């Protein structure tokens, strides 16, 4: 499989890249113009969906740092998503902490949890790590349901949070305010991830993925970077989980099952492994495909419940077969492909 060409731009800067950077800036500007206009165009429920897209995008960036860039397969990121969500929900409902102040706690707790899970993960090669994280994903709903934590987690009933209003008397509806909150968090975290990947640390984690032994001989501390990467990745998932708890206003063990973890995997595969901006496409996909499948339920009846899973499954295999670098990779190669397609054959 060819993973998207993620050589840091600094290394491969050529005069022609200036143009690409210009296009990149333009795309970024367009994205923000659309993203900022959206809350004033879309209705409440649609806005809620777009907030969820941003939340998924945050979690996907985190997972992509770990799986796409560092090559550690995690099938259990739903667990860290759940940990972040429950951290926020418990702090708000049991300790009366304001909702915005819970996100740093979710960050710290999930980073610590990820780092600690990452330590034993150091000894597990690709396949075994996938196994261990798969087990984590399957066991998560049961653990959240554990009677001993009922006083805090509310057991299978879950926890309800009230929807926060916009602060400082801003003339925004709660949905608009939450959307902007998600957008701000996502921007910050995307920016951080892009910088992380572009710099020295990014080169180190990619080197560890591509050739651990060579990376080690270059003086890269593999265990430190791998565990760190796991921690940072869990931090992203945790922030996403915390935001999801605030936006949805509800957490329960059933919302964090294996399907969530596998959806995250689907998201990074669709968006493009080892790509930061690509995950936006993955997030759109993961949010809207189950939604549209739900709308088809009058067509298929009860079996429409199976539709998202079927689409995900077929797509995972088809993408690995046809387009292993996802939407991001396709966008990157599309101009070259199109120009080759439409250019006249050279005269011989």
């Amino acid at each position: 499989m060819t993973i998207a060409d993620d050589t840091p731009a600094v290394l491969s800067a050529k005069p022609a890249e200036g143009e690409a950077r210009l296009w990149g800036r333009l795309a970024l500007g367009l994205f923000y113009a659309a993203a900022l206009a959206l809350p004033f165009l879309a209705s409440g429920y649609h806005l809620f969906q777009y907030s969820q897209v941003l939340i998924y995008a945050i979690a996907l960036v985190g997972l992509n740092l770990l799986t796409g860039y560092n090559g550690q397969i995690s099938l259990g990121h739903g667990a860290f998503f759940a940990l972040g969500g429950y951290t926020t929900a418990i702090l708000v409902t049991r300790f009366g902490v304001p909702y915005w102040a819970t996100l740093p706690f979710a960050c710290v707790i999930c980073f610590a949890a990820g780092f600690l899970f990452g330590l034993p993960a150091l000894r597990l090669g690709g396949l075994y790590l996938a196994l261990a994280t798969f087990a984590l994903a399957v066991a998560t709903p049961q653990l959240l349901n554990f009677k001993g934590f009922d006083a805090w987690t509310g057991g299978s009933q879950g926890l309800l949070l009230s929807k926060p209003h916009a602060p400082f008397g801003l003339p925004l509806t709660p949905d608009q305010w939450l959307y902007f909150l998600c957008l701000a968090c996502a921007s910050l975290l995307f920016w951080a991830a892009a910088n992380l990947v572009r710099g020295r640390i990014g080169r180190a984690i990619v080197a560890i993925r591509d050739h651990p032994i060579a990376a080690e001989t270059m003086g890269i501390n593999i265990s430190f970077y791998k565990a760190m990467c796991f921690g940072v990745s869990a931090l992203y998932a945790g922030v996403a989980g915390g935001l999801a708890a605030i936006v949805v206003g509800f957490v329960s063990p059933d919302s964090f099952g294996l399907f969530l973890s596998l959806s995250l995997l689907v998201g990074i595969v669709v968006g493009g492994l080892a790509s930061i901006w690509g995950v936006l496409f993955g997030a759109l996909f993961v949010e809207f495909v189950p939604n549209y499948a739900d709308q088809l339920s009058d067509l298929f009846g009860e079996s429409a419940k199976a539709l998202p899973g079927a689409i995900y499954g077929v797509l995972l295999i088809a993408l690995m077969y046809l387009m292993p670098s996802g939407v991001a990779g396709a966008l990157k190669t599309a101009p070259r492909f199109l120009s080759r397609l439409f250019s006249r054959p050279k005269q011989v």
Partner: protein
Amino acid sequence: MTAFLHQIFSGLAMGGVYAILALALVMIYQATHLVNFAQGEMAMFSTYIAWDLIDRGMPYPAAFLLAVTLSFFGGMAIERIVIRPFAQAPVLTIVIVFIGLLLIFNSVAGWRYSYTIKTFDSPFPSGRWFGNSFMSSHESGAILVTFVVLALVYAFFRFTPLGLAMRAAAQNPASSRLVGIKVGWMLAIGWGLAAAIGAVAGMMAAPIVYLDPNMMLGILLYAFAGAILGGIDNPWGAVVGGFMVGVLENIAGAYLVGPEIKLSVALVIIVGALVIRPSGLFGRPLVTRV
């Protein structure tokens, strides 16, 4: 004390199911060094096929044999069509493909047979065996079936030319090809056998856990735990590991953590075994040349 013994024996019955599924996992692992995440869902689907056949009026033994045979060819087809193109791909790609298969089988079963829970009758007569008061007849039967499957698999690999060829292909593909073994087909047959064995596991598990599209998820996790605990490159180790996990799970569920978080036992066993002794109790440590 009686309750404790009862827990141990019903643990052994479920352990038999885990052992069979672990054996299926080991079979694919030995040939390709991959762990098939879709093994449980494939077994679930086979069980649905058997249920469907019985529902249409076929007697149990015929339905059992037909389901196992169909699973065998289905497994072979999956290897030839879906897995083969990724033979040289990195682990991440293959894991993603396995997850894709898992999702497809799960949702197709849900689509075709709906998500409502069904009962699956046990093939064994309802009286207790030999006045054994610790196990239900199905539990006794499941253990018996486990041993029969083990004996058959052992005999196949030990005494038939095809079994020998498959072992050779798994151990040294290059040399096997030189002596005329079709290594690609051996892999496909390995997948077919794994699917067939998994089908048996599914049909033994279904009367205990009831039939629904998610029934094998937990069982697959315990089978993983069993295979890892016993050593994933050693069939006997995996079988012993499966039985051990069955008993551990039942005792822990009854006396230590409570039945509602039993799955975390599997998580602890998997992570613990991988960290403390990655080769398992009976496996050989994996040595790679730098």
